[in-house]
């Protein structure tokens, strides 16, 4: 038996198929992963993400510390509740984890890091924090849900304190606020609008039950993965890890190069690759033949070289298989993927594949 979130009984109540995820007993789906996927694109779904690790940092020099710890620059965070997506790099420029940082005050920030990387992240953060006299406080007592979809905020607003509704609905994307015992942020991992809500574990079942009562569909990790793949949002451990630079994982946009005086960990290593012509491309692939792209399949670019699918799967929205892949440098828009000994045709496409319910690939074309 793995660790259980405060919502485990809710999952059983909704007939979840429970799977192990990084030591946690988590819902894979509650019957149909595809229906859950479509519910989020069309209306609203809720995910239990209580397994994710919430870490609060405090101290007089916490900002200086974060400007060293991560590749993006927390100086961009000027207003209360503002969030920043970033990578935490090792000295070689490899990605230790990706995370979201919330600005709570000049001396307080909140980090949300991945569940599967919890131990190494906490060890790394504590080690790097020592010279800055920053308190590193894991908030294991908090649960967390993600309510996602075009109707998510409207429906979820009925499940928070009435006195906070207007302010919560007025939150701009990538902003958060404390609403009583809840911390509500307009963020997510699906390519849809919505909220992620952190709360004391004892409040989580009440909020979850309320969301289901107002028509939000419970969704498992399966749908979470197909939704994030369509949105072309990276999954740590799959699309990037400690051996991969953010420059080769489609994450250049998360690196703040200016000011050049800011010496974040890993800067030297990735600066050397910054303008290199032979960096691998990180691209989206659309399968033109029948079949399904899967992680680790070999991609062949004729006359250029080979690469690998980092995340492959089926897109319920496009009704076609899609993938993210790391491929050799070069100017090309077609490749082949080896699937069970056959070479299938893929098109290199601009990501995201889907955003706010709309397919972004023009044209998708017919199956060959």
């Amino acid at each position, binding site marked *: 038996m793995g660790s259980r979130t405060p919502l485990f009984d809710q999952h059983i109540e909704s007939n979840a*198929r429970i799977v192990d995820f990084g030591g946690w007993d988590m819902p*894979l*789906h509650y019957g*149909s*992963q*595809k229906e859950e996927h479509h519910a989020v694109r069309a209306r609203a779904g809720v995910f239990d993400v209580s397994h994710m690790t919430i870490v609060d940092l405090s101290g007089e020099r916490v900002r200086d510390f974060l400007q060293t710890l991560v590749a993006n620059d927390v100086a961009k965070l000027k207003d209360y509740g503002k969030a920043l997506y970033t990578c935490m790099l090792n000295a070689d420029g490899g990605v230790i984890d990706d995370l979201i940082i919330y600005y709570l005050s000049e001396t307080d920030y909140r980090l949300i890091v991945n569940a599967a990387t919890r131990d190494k992240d906490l060890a790394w953060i504590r080690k790097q924090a020592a010279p800055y006299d920053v308190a590193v406080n894991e908030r294991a007592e908090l649960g967390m849900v993600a309510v996602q979809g075009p109707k998510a905020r409207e429906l979820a607003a009925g499940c928070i304190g009435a006195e906070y509704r207007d302010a919560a609905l007025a939150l701009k994307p990538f902003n958060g606020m404390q609403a009583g015992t809840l911390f509500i942020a307009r963020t997510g991992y699906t390519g849809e609008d919505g909220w992620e809500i952190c709360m004391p574990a004892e409040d989580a079942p009440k909020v979850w039950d309320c969301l289901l009562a107002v028509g939000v569909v419970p969704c498992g990790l*399966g749908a979470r993965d*197909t939704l994030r793949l369509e949105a072309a949002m990276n999954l740590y451990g799959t699309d990037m890890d400690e051996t991969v630079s953010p420059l080769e994982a489609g994450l250049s946009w998360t690196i703040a190069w200016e000011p050049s005086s800011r010496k974040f960990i890993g800067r030297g290593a990735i600066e050397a690759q910054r303008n290199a012509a032979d960096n691998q491309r990180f691209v989206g692939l659309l399968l033109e033949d*029948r*079949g*399904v792209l*899967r992680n680790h399949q070999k991609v062949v670019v004729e006359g250029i070289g080979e690469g690998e699918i980092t995340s492959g*799967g*089926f897109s*319920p929205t496009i009704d076609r*298989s899609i993938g993210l892949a790391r491929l050799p440098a070069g100017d090309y828009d077609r490749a082949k993927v080896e699937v*069970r000994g056959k070479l299938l045709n893929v098109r290199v496409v601009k990501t995201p594949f889907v955003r706010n319910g709309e397919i972004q690939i023009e044209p998708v074309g017919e199956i060959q």
Partner: protein
Amino acid sequence: MSELPGELLYTRDHEWLRREDDGSVTVGITDHAQSALGDLVYVELPDVGQEVSEAGEMAVVESVKAASDVYAPISGEILAVNEELADDPEKINSDPYGDGWIVRMNPSDSIDEDAMLSPDDYQEFIDGLDD
């Protein structure tokens, strides 16, 4: 709890087979198998006329989650494949013992029933698995 049709034979690889009146055999995957795989999105079928051997890979079913081989429960020739699965693989989810059939075969030998599982034996087998 999945229901197991009593007239079928089962394998430990979660295939079922039904002996038809004309001596042919229809093959599919069990309700337990489709449920474990989740929503099916693609089925790779063998060619009609192809000879397959017992326990050999015969088809591939792919769900949102993973790809899984379907093994031939017996040796024989493929007489027909369920073409409708190309456009509607979810027939396997909705009706695994009916519209979700995968192939019809002409067995090359008489069927060794002792090598197969009865409905009760298969039920016992899946009850003993970690779901």
